[in-house]
Structures are given as C-alpha cells and as structure tokens.
C-alpha cells in the first residue's frame, strides 16, 4: 500500500504538468510553499580560508560557493587608474552525474557573463588602483555550483540567485592590504596590518521567477523551471534601482505581470539587504 507521499511522487513523474497544475489551482506549490515564498536561505562566510574572501549560499538544496583571490598586476595602458576583476562560474562535477571534463558549458558561461554584467554596474575599478600606471589589484572571482539539480545541462533550483548573493557577500567581506611603492627601491611594500574593504556602489539582489502557464513562481525549484517556459530574473538594488531584467524567450507576459515582478523584486532586495548586509 503506497503512502500519500510516494503516490504523489509517482504522479509527479508520470504526468508532471498536471501534478503541478493541481497544486497551483489551490495557490500552493508541491513543496508546500506559496507562490511568492522563498526556500530557506543560509549564508556561510569565510568557508574557504585559502581564498581572500569567500561565502557559500544554501537556497533550499541549491549550494553555491564563491571565492575571491586578489593579485597585483600592471594596469592596462588604456586605463592606468583602473584595476580589473573577472568572474568565472562553473558547475562542479559533484553537481551532476553527467559532468564532463572540459571547458565550462554554455549555461555556465552565460552565468559568468550575467554576474560580470551586474558587477560592472556596481563596482568601480578605480578603487583597485594602487599606483597609477604601475600597480593595481585584479580580483579573480570564482563561483562553483556544488548542488543545483542539474538536469541534462539545464540548471535549476535557482542557481542564479544563489550565485549572485554569494558573489556580493564575498565582495563585502573582502579586505585588501595596503600597498605602498617604496620610493627608493621602486618595489611594492605590503602592509598586512592595515587592510581596507572594497566598496560597492549598491547591493544588487537577484530574484528569479519561474513561469508556468502565465503564473509566476518565486524561487523556482528544478522541476518548476523545467516544466514552465523560460524563467525571469530581475536584479534590483536595496534602494530600488533596477539593474537587470532578463527573460529569454518563453510565453508572453502581460505588462501588469512585468510591473508586479519588478515591484516584488525591489521589496525583496531591501529585505535581503536589511537581513544580511546592513
């Protein structure tokens, strides 16, 4: 005799769309959440002491870890007063049974570009300059998805929001030691005793909605994203500035839905800011 839970799982496997529809008709989702409820969010700092700063985000079952390493370089000739940063996102092999060796796949590369684009808006490279045209910092931001319900190369379980938050959290914790160029020897002198944190113009928070038959589901799980058409990602700052609205294809949205999604994201951004970054 099957339990209700086992029966539900079997129905979810056989006819997944009907299964999800029957829950949405009652304004609830299969995991018991309401349509605009987040999964439990856990933020752990300094998880990788070998990196200069690091953070790990757990959003439900999705786990993303970010580590930032700072190194010094000579600034580019075109921008002598700027340092640089580069974001690299990868799906770790532990994340999926279908992992293959080789360069990051398209989904991972798209994510790197997305994170890079947001950071360009909120991070000023000027602050990374140590001595114009001589020395500057360069930040290597490495993000690894450790668990994200990776289903046949279509990532899920809302890796986007977790990744964005891990990067911002690591940046907030990053402290760069003071470096002065000795006038006589022209060599850099590092003063580890004195380090300053980097500053962000604003704190971006990413909010992703899955879309299923015209209904928006906040923080979609693997299955919800898979069954619906393309998800929507909105990135807002804590003060309500809209940084990014991303929707690639999928079924059409009404203007009210777009406006509601943005409003919701603004509210969520300030909540997350108050809770974790204030």
């Amino acid at each position: 005799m099957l339990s209700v839970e086992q029966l539900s799982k079997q129905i979810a496997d056989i006819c997944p769309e009907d299964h999800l529809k029957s829950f949405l008709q009652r304004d609830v989702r299969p995991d018991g959440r309401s349509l605009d409820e987040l999964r439990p969010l856990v933020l752990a700092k300094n998880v990788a002491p070998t990196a200069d700063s690091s953070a790990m985000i757990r959003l439900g079952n999705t786990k993303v870890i970010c580590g930032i390493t700072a190194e010094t370089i000579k600034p580019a000739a075109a921008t002598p007063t700027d340092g640089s940063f580069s974001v690299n996102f990868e799906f770790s092999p532990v994340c999926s049974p279908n992992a293959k060796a080789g360069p990051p796949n398209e989904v991972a590369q798209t994510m790197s570009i997305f994170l890079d684009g947001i950071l360009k808006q909120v991070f000023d490279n000027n602050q990374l300059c140590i001595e114009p045209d001589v020395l500057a910092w360069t930040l290597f931001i490495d993000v690894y998805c450790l668990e994200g319900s990776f289903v046949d190369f279509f990532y899920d379980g809302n890796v986007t929001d977790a990744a964005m938050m891990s990067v911002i959290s690591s940046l907030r914790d990053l402290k760069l030691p003071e470096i002065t160029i000795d006038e006589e020897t022209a060599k850099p002198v590092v003063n580890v005793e004195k380090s300053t944190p980097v500053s962000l113009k604003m704190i971006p928070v990413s909010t992703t909605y899955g879309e299923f038959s015209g209904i928006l589901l906040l923080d979609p799980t693997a299955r919800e994203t898979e069954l619906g058409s393309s998800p929507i990602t909105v990135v807002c700052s804590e003060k309500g500035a809209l940084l990014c609205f991303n929707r690639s294809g999928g079924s059409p949205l009404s203007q009210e839905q777009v406006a509601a999604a943005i409003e919701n994201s603004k509210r969520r951004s300030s909540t997350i800011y108050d809770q974790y970054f204030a």
Partner: protein
Amino acid sequence: MELLSDEGFRFDGRRAAEFRKIQGRLGVFDHADGSAILQQGNTKVLAAVFGPRQPMASQHGAVSQEKCIVDVEYSRAAFASAERKRRARGDKKAQEISLSLKKTFEATILTTLYPRSAISIFVEVLQADGGDYAVCVNAATLALIDAGIPIRDVCCAVSCGVAIKDNVAYSLLDLAYSEESARIPTIVATGMPKTGEMVFFEVESRLHMDYFRAQI
C-alpha cells in the same frame, strides 16, 4: 624550515607519526546517491557518488557484460591553494589523478555485482593544504559507503614523507603543504586495512632502498 625538531616535533606541533585532525560528514548532498565531505587538517574535499545507474551514451564503448564501469572525475577549486591556480577542467594533472583514482576504485568496488552499469565518483577539492590525493581517496570511500555500494574493504590513503635526521629515517605521516614543498621523498599509499592489501602506491623521488623498506 626544519621538518623535525630535536624534540621530535613537526612545524605544526605534531609528532612524526601523528595525523592531522580529521573531520567528516556523510550525506551532505541530496541529489547524489552517496556523498561525503572530509577535512584533514586544512585540506577539505567533497565527494559525490552516483550509481549504479545506466551508462551514458558516451560510455557505450566501455560497457562490459561482466562488470560495471567506474568513472571518476577530479576537480579543484581555483581558490583551493594559497596561490590561485586557474586550471581548465580536464587538464593533464587532473586527468592523471582521475585515472589513478579510477584504478584504485575499480579494484575496491565489487564491480562484478553490477554488469552493464556505471558508477560515477566525483571529487572536488575546496582547500588544498597537502595530501590532497590521499584525502580524495578517503572522501570518495566515505561517499561510496554512504551510497551503500558494496566494496571489498574500506580504502584508506595516506601521504608519507621521509625525513632523515642524524642518519635515521623518520616517516612523517599526513604531510601538510609546507612539508610537501620541502621536496623530501614522498610516498602516497592506499591500502585496505582488513585484508592488508595495497591498492595504490606512488613514489615520486629518489629514495634509498633501505629507507623504502622501513616506510612500508
């Protein structure tokens, strides 16, 4: 840096044959059949096991009627070591380690119980402070146990260096990164405690045969 002080202490206060602090947990991932996280001193490794399951299309050539395929993938976070090393996934060093791990576990898992299937083991090094190969083997063994996959015996690995002091050879067990960089002769050995068998053995420097026998 002196490897072994006159009183018999190593740089971090351990004795010659003393291990670093070991912390581990099983079942850290929900989606994997078995998973474990293991930390020996400052070296932290995650391992996930998927299987037995149907082999992927790419593995069709290797499918065997008598036993299962063991597939291992080793990966290392760029921020894992003190110096950031960005290695493309699938570079030579990673492949070499993946291959040695694969051979180790092919010998450990009772592969004849699962013909025409595949077992995948994935290992991710989050922090590397010496002995990462050994910790990978240990973490993967824990993940296999968590997955409930039948194995011949628990597979344990340790890295061991030889410090020669006053013409006496001391074995330093469970090397840390600073000891590994001191370029002393190192042996990495993987063995099965109950049966006493050695599964994997690697020596990567010159070592006098007399000292070698003592290490074993």
